[in-house]
């Protein structure tokens, strides 16, 4: 692990030496996120989002554990205890708004983190495992977010739970028993609420564990970088601390400012007013939509309106929605181009941006009512999404002529600064 020129941990204080002999935890931290981890010197701000996602996870765990202290997981009182947290508990409003908006910010930074990985080819060898573990985290996040949204037991909570568990009901033969099993009843009820609370509490810690694996897997080859050229020697890297702790610290400051703006000035902007009405199994809200971060997948779900052979449209939609995420697990083997970074792949770059626009269109349609023209647009956009990964990407990898790569990270960095005489220039960052 790591590069041979990584700085060594040498505890000076006798107490630290004593700890290091017994339990080398400070050494582990030093080698993971300290000066002992050499990182490419040319990382741009897109490389901040991993650390920011970790920060968002910590915000969610802290505010979530506090929320749990004031919450009653029972359909009779759940809605009331959330409102009581908002009105009566000291700083309860802050905890709840931070938790609800924190989920949105978690998804924002994770989507940007995935965007970074897609553009710069971070999923390619030797970092496939990092990518796969990242997708596992993403799936766990979606499950956690969904279950968390049910807990306030408002109208959107109830009907969201009903629609989402109803997806499993679309599976032939075993679908309905699975749905009943998931809910612990025939419709969302007390049993559902209790198990969702239990799992919503558990899963963030599972996510934290997978994050550790994700970082571990990352540190075997080391971080990728905007050129996609691997590290060749000590001149290509700087120690994580203080260089990237400082850069990530700045990023965290920007993140927290934006978070505070939403939290204090528009805390309900991303929520649905219907969720301030207590769950009522006998009355459906006119327009059931999930939270914004599920919209692209929701659009794919609803894009299927006609049966295909013997498969009903509803099941097709469910299969397509799950496939749209599972497809990403195969990405490292669908994109066979040896060039990682999109910056050196002219054709890939164009189609990459089309894909991003496509996903944004899907997101817009997923939040819109299920009527024309949105259904038709989602059908085209969903088809393109699959075509991008299954047809376009493998073809590009095959026929594209990439731009010449720099010989090393250092060469690319110095060229960027208009200095071609790399030999005479000292390492600028130091």
């Amino acid at each position, binding site marked *: 692990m790591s590069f041979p020129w990584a700085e060594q941990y040498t505890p000076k204080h006798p107490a630290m030496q004593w700890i290091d002999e017994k339990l080398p935890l400070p050494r582990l931290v030093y080698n993971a996120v300290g000066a002992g981890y050499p990182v490419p010197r040319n990382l741009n701000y897109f490389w901040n989002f991993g650390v920011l996602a970790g920060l968002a996870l910590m915000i969610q765990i802290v505010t979530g554990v506090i929320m749990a202290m004031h919450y009653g997981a029972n359909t009779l009182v759940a809605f009331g205890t959330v409102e009581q947290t908002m009105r009566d508990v000291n700083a309860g409003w802050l905890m709840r708004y931070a938790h609800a908006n924190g989920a949105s910010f978690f998804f924002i930074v994770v989507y940007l983190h995935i965007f970074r990985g897609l553009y710069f080819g971070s999923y390619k060898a030797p970092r496939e495992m990092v990518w796969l573990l990242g997708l596992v985290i993403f799936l766990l996040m979606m499950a956690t977010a969904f279950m968390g949204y049910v807990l306030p037991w408002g109208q959107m909570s109830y*009907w969201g739970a*009903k*629609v989402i568990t*109803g997806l499993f009901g679309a599976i032939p033969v075993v679908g309905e028993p699975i749905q*009943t*099993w*998931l809910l*612990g*009843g*025939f*419709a969302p*009820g007390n*049993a559902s609420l209790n*198990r969702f609370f239990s799992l919503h509490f558990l899963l963030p810690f599972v996510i934290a564990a997978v994050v550790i694996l994700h970082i571990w897997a990352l540190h075997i080859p080391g971080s990728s970088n905007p050129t996609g050229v691997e590290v060749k020697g000590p001149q290509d890297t700087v120690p994580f601390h203080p260089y990237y702790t400082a850069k990530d610290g700045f990023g965290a400051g920007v993140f927290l400012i934006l978070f505070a703006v939403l939290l204090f000035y528009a805390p309900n902007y991303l929520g649905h007013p219907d969720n301030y009405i207590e769950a009522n*199994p*006998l*009355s*459906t809200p*006119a*327009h*059931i939509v999930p939270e914004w971060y599920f919209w692209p997948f929701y659009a794919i779900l609803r894009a299927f*309106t006609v*049966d295909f052979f013997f498969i*009903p*449209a*509803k099941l097709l939609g469910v299969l397509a929605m799950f496939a749209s995420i599972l497809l990403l697990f195969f990405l490292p083997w669908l994109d066979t181009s040896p060039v990682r970074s999109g910056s050196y792949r002219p054709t890939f770059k164009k189609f990459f941006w089309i894909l991003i626009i496509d996903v944004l269109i899907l997101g817009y349609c997923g939040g819109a009512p*299920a*009527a024309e023209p949105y259904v038709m647009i989602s059908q085209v956009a969903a088809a393109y999404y699959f075509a991008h990964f299954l047809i376009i990407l493998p073809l590009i990898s095959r026929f594209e002529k990439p731009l010449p790569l720099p010989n090393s990270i250092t060469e690319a960095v110095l060229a960027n600064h208009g200095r071609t005489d790399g030999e005479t220039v000292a390492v600028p960052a130091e």
Partner: protein
Amino acid sequence: MAIVEHVESEGAAVSSGGGADGVRRRDFINIAAVSFAGVGAVAVVVPLVDQMNPSADVLALASTEVDISSIQPGQAIKTTFRSQPLFVRHLTDKEIAEADKVDPSTLRDPQTLAERTVDGKKQWLITMGVCTHLGCVPLGAGEGENRGEYGGYFCPCHGSSYDTAARIRKGPAPKNLEVPKFSFTSDTAILVG
């Protein structure tokens, strides 16, 4: 480490001593022990999974008795069955005629009104109030609610229209409104479930 070496040397001794087929007694014991533990583990998983199924108190509410004596022709009531909405509708003669007029083979989910009701009590249409598209509650059971263009039920979520036999006629829903298992306990009461 010492134990492993001991096992290996002992195993080698046994196999060289007897096993012509290369299978040691130690191999058999390993497989038997792991299999036994595996069966035990699976047996423990069963209650861990099964506890998530509906509990006895939920199942105890799995059947509902409904008094239908006060529902006039043309009226409907909304009640609950298995904590989901249940529509009990007293069809008028005109609504029955409209439902019977339709050729079932032209429908998305072909069924006749007779197949969806009890013999001799065709006027009592009992269905779940759960749209078969994504599970919303359709309108039409309450007084003055929109019954859609086929005079049955109308789902406001995605515009599915059901006819007077609660069969899907228009919109995204794939199936007719579900008819639960029910029976008449008397002329004025039904037992659902």
